[in-house]
């Protein structure tokens, strides 16, 4: 009996590994999630812009049918949708008496969503001003 139990256990483990490996092959599609009470995820950016209200923001991420939505902060798909590789507006701010980037805007007049990169800086352990993180998101205009 013990042997059978062990055998079943081993088979389950092998299947688990195979599921894990198979899972790797599933494709994720670029998607955006509207930040209102619906939290709807869209893979079609045009439809997303139609459904949004002025000033609504979108998180950037990916979608697949198994794991559904996940945020990735990858703005590449949105830039491609906007057909913009360079920002159209860059603004500066002061941080610890130094001038640093504040936010970059990718704004195509023909589209109803614009993409924002907002920079946040910090002091590192050596008292240098270094990038802390970048907030990527879309905005309905």
């Amino acid at each position, binding site marked *: 009996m013990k042997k059978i139990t062990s055998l079943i256990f081993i088979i389950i483990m092998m299947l688990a590994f*195979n599921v894990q490996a198979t899972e*790797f092959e599933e494709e994720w599609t670029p998607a955006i999630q509207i930040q209102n009470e619906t939290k709807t995820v869209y893979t079609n950016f045009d439809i997303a812009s139609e459904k949004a209200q002025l000033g609504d923001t979108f998180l950037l991420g990916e979608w697949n049918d198994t794991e559904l939505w996940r945020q*990735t902060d990858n703005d*590449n798909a949105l830039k491609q949708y906007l057909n913009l*590789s360079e920002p159209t507006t860059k603004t500066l701010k002061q941080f610890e008496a*130094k001038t640093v980037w504040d936010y970059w805007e990718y704004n195509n007049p023909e589209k109803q969503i614009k993409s924002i990169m907002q920079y946040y800086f910090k002091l590192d352990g050596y008292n*240098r001003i*270094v990038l802390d993180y970048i907030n990527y998101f879309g905005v309905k205009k």
Partner: protein
Amino acid sequence: MKKILTLIICLFIFQSYSHSAIKYLYNGLTDLTNVSFPLFNDSGVYIGDTVIPYIKANDVDTNGTSDSPFITWEFAKTQLSAGDELRIIKSDLNYLITTSFTSSANLTITSNQANLFSNLNTGQYVGIIQTSNLKLLGVNYLFHPPSYNPCMYRINNNNIFNYNIFRTNYVSFYVSFWHEAGGSGNYIKNNYYEDIDGIFSTMLYGSNDFFQNNVINRWRQTYSGTHPSAFGAATNLTLKNNYIYNTISRNFYDGTPITENNYGFNNTWAVSSQNLVTLSEQDLLVINGDTYFFNRSDTAGFDITGLEFFLKYGGFDDTEVGNVLGLERLFPDTTARILATDFYTIDTKAEITSKMLITLGWNYDTQTQQILTGTTSTMNDFVYASWYPDSPEIYMRLIPQDTGEITAINSDTNVSDTITINDTTYLTIDVRNIKGASGWQVRIWNADTGDTFGSSFPFEFEGINETQLLIPDNLPIGTYKITVTGMVAEEFRP
């Protein structure tokens, strides 16, 4: 009208390239002066060194010039435009990768082996992902993802990864290079890859790529499922001159265990971790805690002038010497870290070493060696080349007599503990001197005990040279090496 058109075209071309720039990333705490830095051509091949006169230790992460470099990778990567080259300067601190990098722009990232460290935990596609037209040259990348199913790179088209050192210590399913469907034309050459602590992993998952001159060290690869091997589900790959060791996968595709001690095709050699391992940690070069994929015995030393130190590693044909020289010279400050203590135990200064050589009368810098394992191995066409910069090379071809085979029966078969030489007790070795040595010597020796069982006296080179070595009966199983040493006699020294 023609002149106007020409002018317009020139202006257009100028405009196209005017945004290209060299940008610098340096996170060190002290200013640097006269930094040697590798240069590469458009194909990603090393072509020489340049000297960067001054690099400031910056206090704000905003600019990118050499006197005001970026400080963090995460910031620098957002500041790159198509055509840019980002030079990452090696420092005592790691460059942290905290978010994935995605780009289709024509970018070049070069480094003098700066350390990039990634511990991303954002899902299975992490690291550098969905890149096209990216050249990544000369970085030292440690990938330590805490989540399952990570990728170090997820690549599309026309990427070039040359002269990099990749290490990962993830413990489950893992892919270094995930090739996007429909992608092609990725060149992965002259890299060292090490899976430090993985259970199973895949080096390359994809198709239509060129995978050449890489050294892959995989161990603890115990899983034989869907993607168990070095090249999981890879199709239509161009494989050439790769060396895989510490692996259990025989054919690189389906996880069939290796039953011989080594197995190869397309000049790609796999060495089983369950039998004899012909390359060990001790065969790698460790400099200041960093491991490089050089054999110790024949890859570092001074050239025949006694004035130039060199590093090299093997497995390349003549047409690829340029690439190899690039790697040899990629570490311009290695002269200060001499490994030549393998040869010269006391003083590693060139002029004093040269003096010692003159006393001895011979220069051993042109050594080359070929590993023989206790294995079933056809020795025909077993070619190994050795070289050092700016000099011709010794070219060695081993041609066994009669059957052309040396047969070893390893202990796993419980048949014999000895190597049996079929129909001959001699091994013929041809050496073609194209490196300028005036004489040569050859020996076969046990890599574990150091015992030499066949050797020749020094010969003078004259055209293509040939000698025969006696191979004794009942040779104990083990790892054997043939060493051919090119020598320059005192009277021939410049």
